[in-house]
């Protein structure tokens, strides 16, 4: 946000170009940004040896 303010201050004739950019920030891009954060987190918490974990994950059949 701070950067955007500087940009518009530096070139006030381009403010109309900045408006559509902010309008794009719909809930859809919230979901996209959220997914990025989630994937960062998955990179951290996914079992360190995921392949081994999956291989060892064997259950006895139940009901």
């Amino acid at each position, binding site marked *: 946000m701070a950067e955007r303010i500087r940009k518009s201050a530096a070139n006030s004739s381009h403010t109309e170009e900045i408006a559509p950019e902010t309008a794009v920030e719909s809930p859809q891009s919230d979901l996209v940004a*959220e997914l990025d954060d989630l994937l960062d987190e998955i990179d951290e918490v996914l079992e360190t040896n995921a392949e081994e974990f999956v291989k060892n994950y064997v259950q006895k059949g139940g009901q």
Partner: protein
Amino acid sequence: MATPKICGIETEYGILAIGSDMGPIAASSLVVGSYSGGTSSWDYSLERPGEDARGFTLDDQFLPEIEVQLVNSVLTNGSRYYVDHAHPEISGPECTNALDILRYDQAADEILRRSLDLANQQLPQGVSIVAHKNNSDGKGNSYGSHENYLVSRLVPFDQLAAFITPHFVTRQIIVGAGKVGSEFPANRPTFEGFQISQRADFFEEEIGLETTIKRPIVNTRDEPHCDPTHLRRFHVIVGDANMSQAATFVRVGSTQLVLALIEEGLYPPHLVIDDPVAEIRQVSRDLESTHKITLHDGRLMSAMEIQRDLYDRCVTAVACGMDIGSSPEVVSLVLSTWGRMLNAVETMNDEAPRLIDWVAKKRLVDGFRDRHGLKDGDPRLKAIDLQYHDLRPNKCLAFKCGLETLVPASEVALAVDAPPEDTRAYMRGMLMRGYSEEIVSANWDSIVVDIGGDVLKRIDMPDPLRGTRTLTERLFEGDPSLLTLLKRLEGR
């Protein structure tokens, strides 16, 4: 009026000991025993798991499977907590409504988490037990999250089965928990592809008594744990365990309503599926919603169209006074949430990954695959599937992905210890809370106590709608001795 749709959920959790060769039965026993101490034993004398709703019994065949030596206990919240088929299982208390079902389902998860903490404190460094609220290991082995509903015996069982089956085949589009891979046929499992349901691959029959092999979409176990002349307990084994609260809530709430439609004679008789076993797998693989289901009369309908039809009929029936014994507020919340979930999956709007497990899971799997350029079938994608259901809060991906919450943590914490107040689970829970030392054994409809002397005393609770707080609170006033309590009980 439809029979009050008293209901309950029983969940078998996946279990794994990391850093040890401890088997699943030992691990399950340690987990359950750590929480409950395994003190009170279960009373099997009145159980009839071989009783078939179609009119015959198979008791001899089923009796040897009873695992009496395993840890088995009744909790103060009215649940049964035990080891079943090498899994920890919690059978929740009888509830009158889907919101209580959700509270006790969440409480069951919390009890598992506390049990894991207690069990892991006893294990050496580097060894730990983990549990997953899922229904399959991806290698052809499945375990269930079963639902139970009280229904009237006035509806012939074959008709009940034919009419409820379309809901079971199609409700997965909103309550499926999602799965990376395929386990059909069971001897050729693969991690390739993605499907809507955890359980759909494991159903081989339309109707039958089995639960562990040749599983049927409609299970015929006929063991009402109450007045068997008028009521049956409809035992549902077809569903996925859900991480989404909305999904657990609507899975049970919508099924209560469709069962009531059938009892009230409001179910459309033409809405019967021609080949449900094939269709349940097809629907599970129909991620683009293009598949048409063939009905008995030759018409074609999508899973969404069938759900919309059932949903609209339930909305109308409730508006016209159909009563399922739940409060109007909860029924109204069931209908609005069911409607939101149908809209969400139909349009794949922003609510879809907030409400629907398979959509939330697929979003993580697809995102991870794209980010790291992985191929279909990569075991890391299966690891995401498994970890979606991991009960450890720091590992559980479902906790992290923004699912909507319907019951706050404070209510779940209460439900860990306190029983529901409007069924006989209240009486069971209160007895467990105050008199666990004197309780010899328990079952859903009775509790056997030792009051000294030669004879044990059985307290019968045949009616699930009695033994409520309103009816029994005064018995427990002043924390009486068990003898005084029994005198008060007999003096009524």
